[in-house]
């Protein structure tokens, strides 16, 4: 069966004074039904831009936007804006934003904001129906139902984020994008939210696309991991393998920089910095920092299938590598 979401050759460039920034530069990604995929990458690698590109939440300074976003086999990029708004937004694709202070409208009651998509997409006709739906949505995420009458500023950060999750699930979409859902929260609240997300994943069978910079968060939730580096997905595969036997040299370096609970070794820092997205290198973007660099790395590497599922964007796993050795 085809995956729920399939992203091909997705590109999103931004206009800046210094020239176009290639925030998302030819991304391939798959999200299976009922699976949770973590897009993992360091700050500025284009993770959030990837989420925006999939959700078609484009800022004003877009220079280039192309590729294919197939949801259930239908290319969303072909849909005109109005049709996308009515048929896809929140109905099939929803978003839990970063747990910042202001992801909820400060002057509207929390319950009304949760109910808004229900009214908008014609799921309810009477206020009592909306109230019931909201109460159920809030109960599901562990928010007392009487909080529906409160304003966002009357809620704690963790409660606000729970409300955001309730809101994202209120129409039971096929895919929920979680954009750093636990950043800006304290560690205990983070742990509570991760547990909640795990429970919801089991209960609802919804697919999640989790954007995060935190290997620990990814390992908690993800079935698959997509590792992003300088605007590209360099490795994609089951989380289990990614955490135990990473394939891409960047994934290996990243794994070495994090120490597990029962490991007795010093963390290995990864020297250097990611290349500028203004002017990325022509070949492999990791080549400059890569310990396994060899001749073909000056050319753009292909996506190579890996044993056990997934792909890696690296010359090491191609025919050329075996010739070179």
């Amino acid at each position: 069966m085809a995956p729920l979401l399939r992203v091909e050759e997705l590109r999103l460039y931004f206009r800046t004074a210094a020239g176009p920034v290639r925030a998302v530069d030819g991304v391939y990604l798959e999200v299976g039904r009922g699976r949770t995929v973590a897009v993992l990458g360091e700050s500025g690698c284009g993770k959030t831009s990837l989420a925006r590109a999939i959700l078609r939440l484009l800022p004003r300074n877009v220079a280039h936007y192309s590729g294919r976003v197939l949801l259930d086999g239908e290319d969303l990029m072909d849909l005109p804006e109005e049709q996308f708004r009515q048929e896809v937004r929140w109905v099939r694709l929803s978003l839990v934003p970063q747990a910042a202070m202001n992801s909820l409208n400060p002057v509207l009651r929390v319950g009304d904001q949760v109910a808004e998509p229900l009214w908008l997409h014609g799921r309810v006709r009477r206020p009592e129906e909306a109230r019931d739906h909201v109460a159920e949505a809030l109960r599901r995420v562990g928010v007392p139902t009487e909080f529906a009458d409160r304003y966002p500023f009357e809620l704690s950060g963790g409660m606000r984020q729970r409300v955001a999750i309730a809101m994202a699930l209120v129409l039971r979409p096929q895919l929920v994008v979680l954009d750093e859902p636990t950043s800006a929260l304290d560690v205990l609240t983070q742990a509570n939210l991760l547990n909640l997300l795990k429970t919801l994943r089991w209960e609802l069978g919804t697919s999640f696309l989790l954007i995060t910079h935190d290997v620990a968060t990814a390992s908690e939730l993800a079935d698959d991991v997509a590792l992003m580096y300088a605007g590209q997905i360099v490795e994609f595969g089951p989380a289990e393998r990614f955490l135990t036997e990473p394939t891409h040299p960047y994934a290996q370096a990243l794994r070495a920089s994090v120490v597990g609970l029962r490991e007795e070794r010093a963390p290995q820092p990864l020297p250097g910095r990611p290349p500028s997205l203004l002017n990325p290198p022509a070949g492999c973007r990791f080549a400059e920092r890569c310990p396994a660099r060899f001749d073909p790395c000056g050319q753009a590497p292909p996506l190579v299938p890996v044993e056990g599922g997934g792909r890696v964007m690296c010359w090491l796993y191609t025919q050329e590598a075996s010739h070179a050795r």
Partner: protein
Amino acid sequence: MAQAVAVTAPRGGVRQHPAARVLLYAVTRLVALLTAVVVGVYLTILVANMGGYVDQIKRAEIREQVALAVSLNEQMQRLPADVRERVAEQMIRNEERRLGLDRPFLSRSVGYLRDALLLRLGFAERMTSDTGSRLVRQIILDRLPATLLLFLSAQLLLFFASVAAALALSRRYGSPADRLVVALAPTSAAPAWFYGIFLILVFAAGLRWLPFGGMVDAPPPEGKLAYAASVLKHMVLPLASLALSSIFLSVYAWRTFFLIFSSEDYVELARAKGLPGRLVERRYILRPALPTILTSFALGLIGAWTGAIVLETVFNWPGLGRALYQAVGLYDTPVIVGSTILYAYLLAVTVFALDIVYAVVDPRVKVGLGGER
């Protein structure tokens, strides 16, 4: 700014009865505003009297008038010099006492303040109203309608036009129209009367389409409709110069304001939720920005009550600004103080009303004194 009023946690703490809290808050605010009015009006009294120096000017004038009167009076001239001198001195003292100049300025200024605060505006010293009265109240009332007609129309027109245009521009950030407005914003550095002079040159002197100034044709046309049409025709150029002098800056400022509000996370989330653009604008941009918009609107409206001195002069508009200008030139302090107290009270009432409006439109603003925590 809005939060500064008092943002209180809804839970915990000892609570007063809400009505008592609101009442206490209202009284405290009123006392604060009244104090501001008193200080403002007293400062105006000091300034309008040049801190008492106007007394000396008036004394010199009285002396000169009496000397002139004496020298022109033949009967006086027949009196012996020392008697004439004594009579003249008596006349000067009488006149000074009539004007209250025999008492020190500071003690009189308290009386002025009391009269002003009680809206006993009294008599003008030299000016007369257009209808011939010396009552300051009448002078102001005669001029107020003309000023309000011109400046309220300008204010309403400008406010709604610039907010609508700014909203449209904030949707098209970086478009040619947007960049044009940004580029034209500095044109507001020149005052309205500056544009007025050019407009008069072109449309009155050059093309002869519109009148040079004034409020109606002379003689005024018969019939209400014809009269209104004539007033409208006279309003075109002053309105246009008021608009020209501030529209671009105003649109630019609002557009930037809306851009800031539209980059909030909840606006993006509203788009992701599939809200249509107009609804996002109304519920997620305009609604949270409402306190600021209302403040700007209300303060703009009361700003219209003072008129504009130079613009009214350039267009020969019979408004309060010109009366004030005349009063300043004649050291007619009652008129200056009278029009100031009117504005001070309006401002205080408006600010008080805005405080209440904030609490109504913004749930984050809770009426209280900050003591309730």
